[in-house]
């Protein structure tokens, strides 16, 4: 903005007051763009409303997009305005007026941008705190924990498969992630070998799976749907294939499913190590 050469009409030039005219155009453009961003584009931004965390992330993305809208509108409209009104006349090579400092404008610019950045920082921090991590892994000791009962589900990553352990159901381990709708889930994410990353996009959950680390993430599914779990950390030749299916089902269907798994997978459950937040499995290498 400090380079705007025609903030005031040049004496005797018959030039309009570009600053005022452009400000009006910008305000009008922003007033038109903002509702479109909030109510049309916002709902299209992922990850959807499959869980409380996913819905909150959608809200956060919409807020950030709305905050960015006046800035983007300013840049695009000024670009168009300059192309139209500050075009070099044919046959003439004109220099614009010398650019001088503009203390008021510079101060306003610094204050406005600093305020926006600080506001976004405060907003993000509050949202993380109030949403108990917003679906992200918060380490073994999360700062905020949702109240009420929670279903613990352990996510075990290994090259190249995710398996899921349900400690409150006899520690049964499965290859499919099935969750009850409208119940708070407490994920405990860990790895048996290298670094992986548990990412259930539709649920808005993403947490690193590190060997020897218990990474906790919370989520409450709010929609009966199928979803995909992917590894989001390059982990070897089959990283691209390290995905599997998940389902959010009714609590009754979940109970039926988990009891079927307990029965079907009894031989494996019998030989599993006792449930633990992390595992240091042997052998670590061949020959040991």
């Amino acid at each position: 903005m400090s380079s705007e050469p025609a903030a005031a009409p040049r004496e005797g030039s018959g030039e309009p007051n570009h600053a005022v005219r452009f400000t009006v155009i910008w305000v009008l453009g922003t007033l038109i763009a903002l509702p479109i961003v909030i109510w049309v584009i916002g709902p299209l931004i992922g990850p959807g409303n499959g869980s409380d965390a996913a819905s909150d992330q959608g809200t956060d993305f919409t807020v950030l997009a709305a905050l960015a809208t006046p800035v983007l509108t300013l840049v695009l409209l000024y670009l168009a305005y300059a192309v139209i009104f500050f075009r070099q006349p044919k046959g003439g090579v004109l220099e614009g007026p010398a650019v001088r400092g503009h203390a008021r404008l510079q101060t306003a610019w610094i204050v406005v941008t600093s305020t926006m950045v600080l506001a976004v920082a405060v907003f993000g921090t509050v949202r993380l705190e109030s949403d108990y991590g917003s679906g992200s892994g918060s380490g073994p000791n999360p700062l905020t924990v949702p109240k009420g009962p929670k279903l613990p589900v352990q996510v075990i990553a290994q090259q190249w498969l995710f398996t899921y352990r349900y400690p409150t159901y006899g520690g049964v381990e499965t290859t499919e992630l099935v969750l009850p709708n409208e119940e708070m889930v407490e994920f405990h994410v860990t790895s048996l070998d290298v670094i992986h990353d548990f990412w259930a996009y539709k649920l808005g959950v993403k947490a690193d799976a590190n060997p020897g680390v218990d990474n906790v993430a919370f989520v409450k599914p709010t929609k009966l749907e199928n979803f995909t779990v992917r590894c989001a950390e390059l982990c070897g030749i089959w990283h691209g294939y390290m995905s599997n299916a998940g389902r959010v089902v009714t609590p009754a269907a979940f109970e039926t499913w988990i009891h079927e798994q307990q029965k079907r997978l009894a031989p494996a459950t019998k030989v599993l190590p006792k449930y633990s937040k992390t595992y240091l499995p042997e052998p670590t290498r061949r020959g040991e």
Partner: protein
Amino acid sequence: MSVFAKKLLGVSAALAVLGVLIGLYVAAWATSAPPTITATIAPASSGGDKLTLMTVAAIGPKYSPTHPDWVSYLVRKNGRWVHSTIFSVPANSVIHVTIYQYDGDTGLRNAFLSQVQGTIGGTERVDGKTVNAIEPEEASHTWVVPQLGIFIPLPGVPEEAKNQCEFAPCEGAAHRTVEFSFYSGKKGRYRWQCFVPCAAGFLNGLGGPMQTLGYMDGFLNVV
């Protein structure tokens, strides 16, 4: 043409040739894959197609001059063992699989994988005996197709067994025979892999042959 122009032309031509060669090398490397082996048709009385595999502790120089000491799978084609891990089976069919397992045990890092899953009856036959799981520490390898939910643990040859196989082909040496059948289902390209950290000399036992197509992992093409 000036001397400078000639030098510039020469250097440019040399760089172009070098670039093409590098490109060809990368393309050849990126597109190289083991051959696809189609399951053989089993007798009508068996009601399905047959896939016969072998696992060995070391593939040997005959099959892999570059990595003779790598652990590997082989597949039988027309009565001969072929070094490939890309198999083709018909869709919506019962596939009978026999795996001759010539390697010693290593053990599973995740005992969950010691249970047989995804086969007809949820079992496998080990040396003629039907089981639904093996001891996790006895596992030598697994044959797992995650997308199809097939989990086959393969027990190892006991350490004290005589006539251990050194290099492939291992016919005649001490081995375990694992048999199972599965329904192939719909068409698709499914990856399979071993989950036992069986790559000797690599961190976590998961490098080398575990990370290279053609040894302990591959594709099951259902066509």
